């Protein structure tokens, strides 16, 4: 007998239910599924790795002892993103207080990576820079919305909650962002397709995280 078995994730609601009923295995599953995705999201705000790791630990620590918070939660992913962002905002505020800088917003950045290692380092950097430069013309919120929409495949509803705005407003924000990219670069259309394409690639990647 021989076979190759791919992990099958059980339904998200089952997972929440198991966690609520005190199953620690469900907790580890949630951790293994989301820790790295949360880490990638946190890095977009430009914090130090260690600080993001601490924040992620705080999030899961809080989740472990306050499971009842999940009672009415249908969307675990959004909930964890929100918890992490809140934590990062808190951290940012405490830092800001010391530095006396008037800002309560986090800045979201996009970094491009060509993972292929057959291509020369210089060429790789050039292509990566080209893509990153495109995103610089957008506002931080637009970048975050685009990241969540096209890389993390979030619903407008969830993105709205993360950005403290309504779903239609997010739609507008994303549409404006794409229009802006098109104006700067006459291949805006291309970028739009690039997102769809990246989204597809990432969908496969998420399964491995």
């Amino acid at each position, binding site marked *: *007998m*021989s*076979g*190759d*078995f*791919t*992990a*099958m*994730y*059980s339904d998200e609601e089952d997972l929440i239910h198991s966690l609520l009923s005190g199953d*620690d*295995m469900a907790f*580890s*599953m949630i*951790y*293994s599924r989301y*820790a*790295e995705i949360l*880490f*990638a*999201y946190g*890095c*977009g705000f430009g914090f130090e790795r260690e600080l993001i*790791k601490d924040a*992620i*630990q705080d999030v*899961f*620590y809080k989740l*472990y*002892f306050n499971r009842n918070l999940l009672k009415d939660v249908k969307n675990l992913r959004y909930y964890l993103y929100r918890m992490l962002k809140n934590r990062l905002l808190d951290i940012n505020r405490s830092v800001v207080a010391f530095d006396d800088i008037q800002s309560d917003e986090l800045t979201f950045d*996009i*970094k*491009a*990576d*060509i*993972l*292929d290692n*057959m*291509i*020369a380092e210089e*060429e790789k950097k*050039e*292509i990566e820079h*080209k*893509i990153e430069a495109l995103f610089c013309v957008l506002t931080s919120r637009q970048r975050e919305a685009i*990241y969540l929409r096209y*890389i993390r495949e979030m619903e407008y509803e969830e993105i709205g909650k993360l950005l403290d705005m309504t779903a239609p407003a997010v739609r507008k924000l994303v549409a404006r962002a794409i229009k802006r990219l098109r104006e700067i670069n006459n*291949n805006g*259309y*291309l970028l739009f*397709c*690039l997102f*769809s*394409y*990246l989204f597809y*690639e*990432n969908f496969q*990647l998420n399964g*491995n*995280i």
Partner: protein
Amino acid sequence: MNSIYESYTSPNFLKDESFLRWRFFPTGEDCLFWERFMECHPDKRKEIDEAIRILKSLQLNNYSFETNERMLLFESLQKRISEKKRNRLKQIRYAASVAAGFALMIALSCYLFLKTNTQVDNIASVSHQADVQKKSEKDIQLILTNKEVISFAENADIKVAPDGNVVVSSDSKIIAAGNAAVSSTSLNKLIVPKGKRSSLILPDGTRVWINSGSVLEFPDCFSGNTREIRVEGEIYIEVAKNEKQPFFVHTPLFSVNIVGTRFNVSAYREDFTQSVVLVEGKVNVNFKEKTVYLLPDEKISINDREVRKEKVNIYDYISWKDGLLQFHSESLFLILNRVSRYYDVHIECDEKIKQMKCTGKLVLFDEIEEVLQTISKTLSVRYKITENQIVVYKK
């Protein structure tokens, strides 16, 4: 046609907007153009394919953990959680201990290295005598003191009456019976091979659960001042209370004197470190010339170099009795070892994931595949079943 492209290599293509457009959105002008281009320049096919391949590796905000980072973060998270839990539990446990009776549990894992220890010689030599063992290695065997051999395939319950009558039953049905001639010098021997489990009621009413791959030796009756049994492998035992006749469990490396009524012994040859875990009651562990006292929730680990005592989650060590494995921050390697022993299958584990730490429960289903599915669902691992072994590897 379009001579500049004729000199293009893959990086050049990658920087060409028309090319990118075609790749990301294969319709319209660009599509027609590139399809024709490839028809006219089959020699460029290789460069184009290379460019496509490179483009597939593009990621945005592809931040990830370094090796072990996720695991280490989880470990420190677990530590923080259990510290908080311990603080909470302290108050609860105090109240519970007032009502606590004598229940106790010991898990011992043994590695045979002390040639000077007489008990080692005893058990080792008995094992050699038992050539009967080879006949049907897959069956549970009960070798009585009168040399009668009872063997059976099912996971059975065995009862030894004070008069030496032995009854073997499975699901309340009697499947075998025998009579051990009462003799004070020799011992009955129960061999439970890998992949099997059994339970036994001793003449004094003491109950023993015997885990896979274990050998248990016990007398027909406990006539002396003490009650003594020997084990190599793993047992969970509930000792019938009799203060006048203390109970001893001997393993190849050390012996345990039980003051309470319940304990679990595990003494596998292949495990390097031995351990005793106590649920409730009191136990003395005699190792070399030393005696160590153990209190509830404590685990003592013994190997050739050191003796170490620590607080543990007891159920992790006795859960096998209930058909499941429970563990806290245990390495995947050790968990697979336990699974391998239970199902009698060789499991090979990729070096990269051996040290992955796991916490939780694993139900020991009838089929090992169900267990493996649970593991692969939870951890980022996959497994492959071949003819004579299972390989677990990184996803």
